[in-house]
């Protein structure tokens, strides 16, 4: 079973390749969009590379549930995540940083959801998947 550090190193290489970064730009707490400059199409690229590098399949929306907040989902209203949406995030993103979810619950602007997508979240997801 790969250790968390080994997984982190591989995730770092994946992000360096997918986003054209330098290695020292990638830290555990880096947010994929705000800090590393990922755009939505990059998430597809990142998932492909993780699947290849780790030899696994990542079902759609399991790692990055971007489509959670469509207009009729009931999870978002007037640009804010509803209580129902926060509850859904807690269930659907067990690999996300708990403190960031709490911060989102206090300031539920929808653009803050992206802050959940960090390098650590990806590492947590893979650690659970590979060792689970």
């Amino acid at each position, binding site marked *: 079973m790969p250790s968390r550090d080994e997984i982190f190193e591989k995730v770092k290489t994946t992000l360096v*390749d997918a986003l054209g970064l330098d290695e020292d730009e990638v830290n555990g707490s880096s947010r994929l969009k705000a800090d590393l400059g990922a755009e939505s*199409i990059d998430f*597809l690229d990142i998932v*492909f590379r993780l699947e290849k590098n780790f030899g696994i399949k990542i079902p*759609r929306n399991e790692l990055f549930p971007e489509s959670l907040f469509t207009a009729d989902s009931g999870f978002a209203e007037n640009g804010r995540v509803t209580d129902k949406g926060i509850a859904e995030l807690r269930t659907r993103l067990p690999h996300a940083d708990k403190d960031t979810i709490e911060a989102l619950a206090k300031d539920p602007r929808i653009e803050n959801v992206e802050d959940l997508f960090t390098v650590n979240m990806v590492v947590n997801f893979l650690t659970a998947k590979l060792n689970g």
Partner: protein
Amino acid sequence: MRWFWIDRFTEFKSGSHATAIKNVTLAEEHLHDHLPGFPVMPASLMLEGMAQTGGILLGESNQFAHIVILAKVPKMTFHSWACPGDSLLYSAKLIQQSDEGGMVEVKAHVGERLVAEGEIVFAHVDDAANGGAKIDQKNFVFQILRNVMDVGKAGNGTGA
């Protein structure tokens, strides 16, 4: 003029890899100005040719159930160039695919010489992704491109 940047497939292994040929000719207008006195195939059009080879490879693997669009070029390096009279051979290898799209590794050669290599990511655009509205497929290069699959059906002229 149609937006065909490959002339013919020379190998097609469904869901795995494909190679296509592009013959560069001085009759193509873009070569008259690119570059003055030194006609070379623009890198952007070689990229398009590699994307067409890889895009058809991905599309065919799903029996063309999805509309395939070029989403991202994570890596592309040009090592050399191609001039009129050269035959560019584009090869594409399908390395990842899912319901959402796919990724190919591509190369361009003239003979043994490596001209370019890189990776291309494609996304599927479907009616569902378009809010349920019907997409006018005629507007997509991808649909026109499927005609390239028909090239070669006339045989090689020997009547064999």
